[in-house]
């Protein structure tokens, strides 16, 4: 249409050259190569430990990056600021999914002093987390029950369970079965089932009475059937074998004989119609909403909801651990610390470590961990515990925690084995199990295959 003159052709050439120049400038080096000034894994970069594991007396602001919807952290910050007026907290909150996606970049680019952590082996691998071994030795964390810290240790190979300590818990959670006591009374269930067969019976009775046995969430990218599945695995088999798999120990498999039996049991529940028809479209908050509204007899969940249920369903909710195959048998539960870490580039790692120690050892902090967080505080086995009504949900979950400790039945969640295993493997396969497109055995084999390709790939 328009005639191109020689001059405008020159201009076009010049512009192209200019653009090409910019592109060349921006894209000639290999990605990530500019971050070669990574601090070493033991954190002797900018923040060198000087042996003073306190917050000092000068004004300090700790950068905190937290998960929204959990009031415990802010309650702890307020109490800490009261006790140590020179310390203040600069808090940023996001949903856990957002934290999961952004963790590596946040730790590298805006290093927080305290950060809620997702699955951490990759983060350690990239040298992004502060090594807390020295702090552990200084504060005596090594003398706490070893199982409390095991999940936060990562070795050179990226395997968890052993090696240097890279994170600390604000408390540790306990999972099991919550039930609506009013609905339970309607079908004659006055006490918690003692065997798995009894639980099966109550589910059937509920269904016969027109009560939905469970509205467990299983929609979107969050396959909540992983909760009952793993609890069943603990009833059928050995928790150590499951932990080996989650901690990426060499040769560990998820498709073992006992796990297949557990998955078959779950499939039996699905086929019997014990779960709501629409669980493949239910998310976590919808499940909680329905349970609190009295539309579900059981849900498989954790004690982070204990405080919430004590307020919203006062006297109407109870908790029990997934029952064993035979009465009096060993029980297991997913029990994980609410994990927080320090960036290896953090400005105040020692003050942050001091805060971790304070959470576990200060009486007020421990009270908050129980009353606000609903879970058992970290720390020595004989440390102070606040008074809790044993009839409350919080009281019942704390008691269950003691049972799990006696049985050595604590497990890390199988969804945390690798960064993507939950969203990309457990969830779609559990949804297929519900839809009838996957068998119990096929589910575990598919997850095992994805697990191997993720670890080796």
């Amino acid at each position, binding site marked *: 249409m328009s005639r191109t003159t020689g001059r405008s052709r020159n201009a076009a050439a010049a512009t192209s050259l200019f*653009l090409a120049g910019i592109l060349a400038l921006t894209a000639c080096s290999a990605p*990530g190569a500019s971050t070669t000034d990574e601090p070493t894994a033991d954190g002797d970069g900018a923040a060198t430990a000087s042996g003073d594991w306190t917050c000092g007396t000068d004004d300090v602001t700790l950068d905190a990056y937290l998960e929204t919807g959990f009031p415990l952290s802010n309650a702890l910050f307020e109490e800490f600021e009261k006790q140590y007026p020179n310390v203040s907290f600069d808090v940023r909150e996001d949903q856990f999914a957002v934290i999961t996606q952004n963790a590596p970049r946040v730790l590298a680019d805006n290093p927080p002093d305290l950060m809620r952590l997702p699955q951490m082996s990759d983060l350690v691998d990239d040298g992004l987390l502060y090594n807390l071994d020295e702090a552990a030795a200084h504060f005596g964390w090594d003398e706490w029950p070893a199982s409390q810290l095991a999940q936060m240790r990562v070795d050179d190979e990226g395997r968890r369970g052993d090696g240097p300590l890279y994170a600390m818990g604000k408390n540790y959670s306990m999972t099991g079965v919550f039930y609506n006591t009013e609905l339970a009374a309607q079908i004659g269930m006055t006490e918690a089932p003692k065997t798995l067969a009894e639980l099966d019976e109550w589910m059937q009775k509920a269904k016969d009475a027109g009560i939905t046995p469970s509205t467990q969430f299983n929609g979107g990218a969050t396959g909540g059937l992983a909760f009952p599945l793993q609890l069943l695995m603990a009833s059928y088999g050995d928790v150590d074998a499951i932990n080996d798999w989650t901690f990426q120990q060499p040769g560990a498999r998820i498709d073992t004989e006992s796990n297949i039996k557990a998955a078959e049991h779950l499939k039996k529940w699905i086929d019997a119609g014990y779960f709501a028809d629409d669980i493949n479209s239910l998310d976590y908050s919808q499940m909680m909403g329905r349970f609190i509204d009295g539309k579900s007899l059981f849900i498989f969940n954790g004690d982070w909801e204990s405080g919430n249920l004590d307020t919203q369903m006062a006297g109407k909710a109870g908790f029990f651990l997934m029952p064993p195959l035979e009465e009096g048998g060993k029980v297991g539960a997913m029990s994980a610390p609410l994990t927080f870490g320090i960036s290896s580039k953090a400005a105040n790692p020692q003050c942050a470590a001091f805060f971790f120690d304070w959470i576990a050892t200060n009486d007020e902090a421990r009270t908050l961990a129980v009353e606000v967080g609903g879970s058992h505080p970290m720390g020595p086995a004989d440390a102070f515990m606040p008074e809790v009504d044993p009839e409350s949900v919080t009281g019942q979950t704390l008691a269950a925690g003691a049972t799990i400790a006696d049985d050595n039945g604590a497990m890390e969640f199988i969804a945390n084995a690798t960064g993507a295993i939950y969203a990309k493997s457990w969830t779609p396969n559990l949804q297929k199990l519900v839809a009838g497109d996957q068998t119990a055995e096929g589910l575990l084999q598919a997850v095992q295959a994805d697990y191997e390709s993720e670890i080796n790939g």
Partner: protein
Amino acid sequence: MNEMRTTGAPGRREVAAPASTSLEARRRALKARRLRRGWAALGLVVPAAFFYVIFVLRPLVLTVQYSFYDWNGVGASTFVGAENYTRLVEKPELLGSIVNALELIIYFSFVPVILGLLTAATIRKFAASRLALVSRTVLFLPQVIPLVAAGIMWTWLLATDGLVNELMRLVGLGSITRAWLGDTSTALGAVGVIGAWVALGLCLLLLLSGMTKIDPALYEAARIDGAGAVREFFAITLPSVRQEIGVCVTVTVIAALAAFDIVYISTQGGPANSTLVPGLEIYYLGFFSREVGQASALAVVFMVLVLAVVLPIQRLTKEED
């Protein structure tokens, strides 16, 4: 359309400039003016070009570059050549996601274009009335609502106890009610309905504006020749809005292939990967599996695929121009 084309001849005024006393002076004046114009034009283009380079071209080039590396987004990277591309072929769920995207074209593109044509042809007949204004506004409204809000709203409507199922129960269709987004056989269609609802407004408005430009004399002539409404539609309306249809199809097909927000909000790719689309897969690869190279390779392949689908559509609608 043809007479509306701009002449686009910037040199004309120079040619028509009054004759100077000497040829040399005239040439110099011309040169100076062109230079001034050139600088002005450059000044106008540079700001936009700058942002275009930084936010469009640079990411594009970087994506291509990343696709040849094994990189987790933070640490050091290793050059792996075309390995990321060869590995794409080995992933079966990837093929599924592409098939899903192609299926979404039916809902995101065909349905709104056909419905848009029919509604626009209907509205055209009473274009001046208030009813036309109201229906146009109502149908265009979804286009104004953020996709995230639309997604959330529709997840409520399509839930087991949502409005859609309640209405179905009311008219005696209770036996087929279900969690539309939670059933592997209906989830993709349910997501498609949301997309169709969003895209209909855009298509309607585009097609309607195309139809208002049709010379009423054509319809009159057709009526004299004894053509009915159907014949009128196929003989006059449809051929006249050919270019608008082209724009609608192109925009909506790209929206279908690049779908992310609606799917992410309503199903996150579930249940059982039945609504997994390439956009979501790229996001999962990049941010959950932390395989930035692999995600980039998929993005590049997918971009080529989108072009391969869209370019023929462009040619098809321009053919008889």
